[in-house]
């Protein structure tokens, strides 16, 4: 029994070999055309700066793209995806070989002979099997189980399950047809060394086809070939039309990913600060204002919903779902720059695919970016959209007041600058903790940058007094700027008022450099972030927890054991300390150093920490939401079995103390600041007063 391959087969007097050439050629030409149309908006897009630091980029390709390190964060879906991804990689050689086999029947990769060839055959057989099984499981999961993460809320259009199951079906067809092609040849009398790996798909098909007639085998062989060929090339050309575009773009999307955390992109790349005033328009108002990398992000979304699943704004039902920020933009790109047809006029984004509230609802916590397996960025896009809103004057009244106050007074509360340094003057405090006022030529080694909430909010002043006490205990030579200090501006920038930020940054930088400290310390993670990432030419900036850990290591603290022995503590990672600055361990070290500390972790901790609802200007915005993020978070603390919730950010503290009241948990959960708690346990040696 012998059957011929597609290279030799003849049907109705036509050599099928012709199709083996025609199909790939036509498909590839079509594919090239499709890709060229998909590139058009990227060419019209704004500039971006991604062709740099390739060492770091390749390291990310290795871990993120190749090793898929983020996938297991959602275990089942992650494993399924990794199976399909690795399977595809293994099958790549086989897929290409199959194309050639279509017109050159004995095609073989020159390097895949002998034992390497045998090894590869085994590998590809199991790869196809694993991919097939994964697709079936995934298909059942998407089509029948329907995990809520994939659901499409009404306002965002039709359900996407159809597309997902369709693609899984296509891939399954590819696996089946490839295995049938092999199995039919094997049963009909394969070549030497040609076999099916045991328990693989090909192996099962071989079993099924044993005993079939030559005609059936020949038919199966040819049909399965062209089914594979057509499906393969159909799939290739289908990719750029939906969420599976990521199969092609993921490599590039990861290669060009954002390398730094907690930063904000400039208004326009390649423009000097002085040239900013000449720009016609600020921010993103229409599709083409996005950079090419952001558009690539839109193409690359796999619609997995992990970003929205982690998004705290989405969790409390604010009108923001990161997944749909991307999907809506992607669909608009597809509509405005269609493959079949000419580019259209796109309407403005705000009032079109996005609403104002949607864009203001983001707290810039970074949970979405942390989760995305394709390194899709969100914060820069939100900031750019906000810049556009600010430029058009479309700012909610609740934000206009603090912005005006920041402009006039340097703080969002509208209090006078004179009041800023007053907290150090409180009699009892000033007697034990001298804090220098760095004005009129006075300098110090360490600048304690207090920032606005810490200067004006009574509760946070309490904490800063404790911080000052600790710095004093560590014999640090430190002081505050007082009147000269203005809001560091982390939120000013992230809410889109770029020019106000630039003005305030210039002012602060001048004030700091006049004092010329060796280092800057702050208790506010937002301050910590912006001084490190958005400012230039400053001395090293540290968060109080880092300073305290150093002091701990130097044996500067004699710590009392915690009084209430049975309390269980849990630590909440502030977004601007944790995700944006990777400072997860120092606060934990400080807590664990307290004798008698019993600490648990909430399920969502470290890089999965759940935002308290934000700081700075975010405190003034009045969102539409079902619950408060703070309330959700304090309930998580209770669920973890904690009696005390410790945090290291003034805004987290304010939001969660409020949340405890609203949730009625006053008798069950206490919220405390890290510095405050630590200071309570330190044995302070009374300072020597005036010389004896």
């Amino acid at each position, binding site marked *: 029994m012998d059957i011929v391959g597609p290279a030799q087969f003849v049907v109705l007097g036509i050599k099928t070999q012709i199709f083996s050439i025609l199909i790939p050629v036509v498909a590839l030409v079509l594919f090239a055309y499709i890709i060229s149309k998909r590139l058009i908006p990227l060419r019209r897009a704004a500039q971006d700066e991604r062709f740099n630091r390739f060492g770091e980029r390749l390291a990310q390709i290795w871990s993120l793209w190749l090793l898929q390190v983020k996938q297991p964060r959602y275990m089942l879906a992650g494993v399924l995806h990794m199976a399909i991804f690795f399977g595809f990689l293994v099958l790549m050689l086989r897929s290409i070989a199959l194309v050639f086999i279509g017109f050159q029947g004995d095609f073989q990769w020159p390097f895949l002979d002998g034992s390497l060839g045998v090894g590869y055959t085994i590998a590809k057989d199991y790869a196809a099997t694993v991919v097939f099984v994964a697709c079936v499981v995934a298909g059942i999961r998407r089509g029948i189980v329907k995990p809520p993460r994939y659901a499409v809320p009404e306002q965002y259009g039709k359900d996407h399950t159809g597309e997902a199951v369709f693609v899984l079906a296509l891939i399954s067809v590819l696996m089946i047809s490839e295995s049938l092609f092999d199995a039919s040849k094997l049963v009909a009398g394969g070549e030497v060394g040609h076999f099916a790996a045991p328990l693989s798909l090909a192996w099962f098909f071989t079993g099924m086809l044993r005993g079939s007639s030559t005609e059936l085998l020949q038919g199966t062989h040819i049909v399965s070939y062209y089914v594979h060929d057509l499906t393969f090339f159909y799939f290739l050309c289908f990719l750029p039309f939906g969420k599976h575009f990521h199969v092609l773009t993921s490599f590039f999307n990861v290669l060009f990913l954002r390398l730094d955390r907690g930063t904000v992109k400039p208004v326009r790349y390649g423009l000097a600060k002085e040239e900013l005033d000449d720009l016609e328009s600020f921010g993103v108002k229409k599709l083409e204002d996005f950079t090419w990398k952001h558009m690539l992000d839109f193409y690359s979304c796999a619609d997995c919903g992990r970003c929205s699943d982690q998004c705290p704004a989405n969790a409390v039902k604010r009108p923001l779902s990161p997944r749909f920020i991307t999907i809506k933009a992607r669909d608009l790109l597809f509509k405005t720059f269609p493959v079949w047809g000419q580019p259209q006029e796109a309407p403005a984004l705000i009032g079109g695919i996005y609403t104002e509230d949607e864009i203001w609802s983001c707290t810039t916590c970074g949970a979405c970016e942390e989760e995305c397996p394709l390194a899709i960025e969100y914060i820069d896009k939100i900031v750019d959209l906000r810049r556009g809103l600010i430029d058009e004057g479309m700012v909610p009244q*609740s934000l206009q007041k603090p912005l005006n106050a920041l402009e006039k007074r340097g703080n969002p509360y509208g209090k006078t600058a004179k009041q800023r340094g007053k907290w150090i003057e409180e009699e009892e405090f000033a007697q034990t903790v001298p804090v220098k006022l760095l004005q009129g030529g006075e300098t110090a080694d360490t600048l304690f940058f207090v920032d606005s909430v810490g200067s004006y909010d009574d509760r946070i002043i309490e904490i800063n007094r404790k911080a000052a006490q600790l710095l004093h205990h560590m014999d640090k030579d430190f002081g505050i700027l007082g009147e000269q200090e203005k809001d560091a501006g982390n939120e000013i920038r992230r809410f889109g008022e770029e020019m106000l930020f630039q003005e305030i940054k210039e002012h602060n930088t001048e004030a700091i450099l006049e004092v010329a400290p060796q280092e800057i310390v702050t208790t506010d993670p937002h301050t910590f972030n912006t001084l490190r990432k958005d400012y230039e030419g400053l001395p090293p900036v540290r968060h109080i927890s880092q300073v305290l850990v150093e002091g701990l290591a130097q044996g500067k603290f004699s710590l009392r054991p915690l009084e209430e022995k049975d309390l269980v503590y849990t630590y909440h990672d502030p977004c601007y300390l944790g995700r944006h600055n990777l400072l997860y361990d120092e606060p934990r070290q400080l807590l664990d150093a307290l004798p008698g500390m019993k600490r648990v972790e909430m399920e969502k901790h470290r890089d999965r920490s759940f935002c308290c609802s934000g700081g700075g200007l975010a405190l003034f915005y*009045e969102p539409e939401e079902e619950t*408060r993020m703070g309330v959700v978070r304090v309930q998580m603390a209770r669920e973890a079995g904690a009696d005390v919730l410790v945090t290291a950010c003034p805004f987290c503290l304010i939001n969660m103390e*409020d949340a405890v*009241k*609203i949730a*009625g948990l*006053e008798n069950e959960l206490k919220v405390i600041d890290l510095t405050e708690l630590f200071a309570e346990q330190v044995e302070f040696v009374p300072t020597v007063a005036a010389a004896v």
Partner: protein
Amino acid sequence: MAAIFVYITHKNGEADDTAFELASAAKAIDAAAAPSAIVLGSSADVEQVASQVAPYYSEVITASHDALQYPNAEVQRKVLASLLPAKALLLLNHDSFSMDLAPGLSIVLDAAFASDVVAFEGIQDDTLQLARQEHGGAVSSRSTCSLENGAIISVRAGSFKAPEAGAQGAVVDKSADLGDLSSKRQFVEVIAAEVGDVDITKSEILVAVGRGIEEEDNLDLVHELATAMGADVACSRPVVDAKWLEKSRQVGTSGQTVSPKVYLALGISGSFQHIGGIKGSPFIVAVNKNKNAPIFQAADVGIVADILDFIPVLTEKINASK
């Protein structure tokens, strides 16, 4: 001293409280004054109102016409300009109508103008000293107003107490003397404020919340307290401006006028516009974290506390007491 006239504000045939208060205001300017009231409107209204105010004024000048039924300031300004003698001193209540009518009237009559006056401090020569508030009530100022060519002065409601009734003043009708009543502004209709789900003007116990509640979500605390007390929830203007509660819940001169038995003001600063909406001397309790808040002047009992802390404690105590 030129003659003093008082414009009578009335609605649905009832003279406003200020109609009587202004008689005292006139006496505060000149103890010897024999002020005349002016009542303009439709004939039915005018007759009724004139009889109500007559015991307080030496003379009641009336003028009625269909065109005067709804108080259109543009029309009434013309009427007053023709009715008032030269160098007259006209007093009115400070409200949306006088804000519309009076400044222009002072120009037409070439008289001086002062608005929202809270006190008169004596006349010297042809100059009247008066006091008013500025900057939303943060500070007060005293000024001298020239009476040389007369003056138009609006007075804040509640600044003077209604006097005792006295002899009936004569009613003089000037309807025949009304000249041209045409104007370049035509009244169309009044769109009444929506009543909303609760009519706080009928409530006996009110829990009113102000800016001190800080955030919309915190209103839940207030609702719980109101439920515990069997009260209705009301608010001051900032809460409505922020769109946290409907306009129908707003107590104040530009909102509802309420007359409960008990009024609990939480986180309300106590601007006169808000207080102006509370009538009938209820038992007022104020809770505010600012010990200098003006509300503590108007309240019977005051507590200095952060309402976000205090409200849940109070709610608990009330529920426990039941």
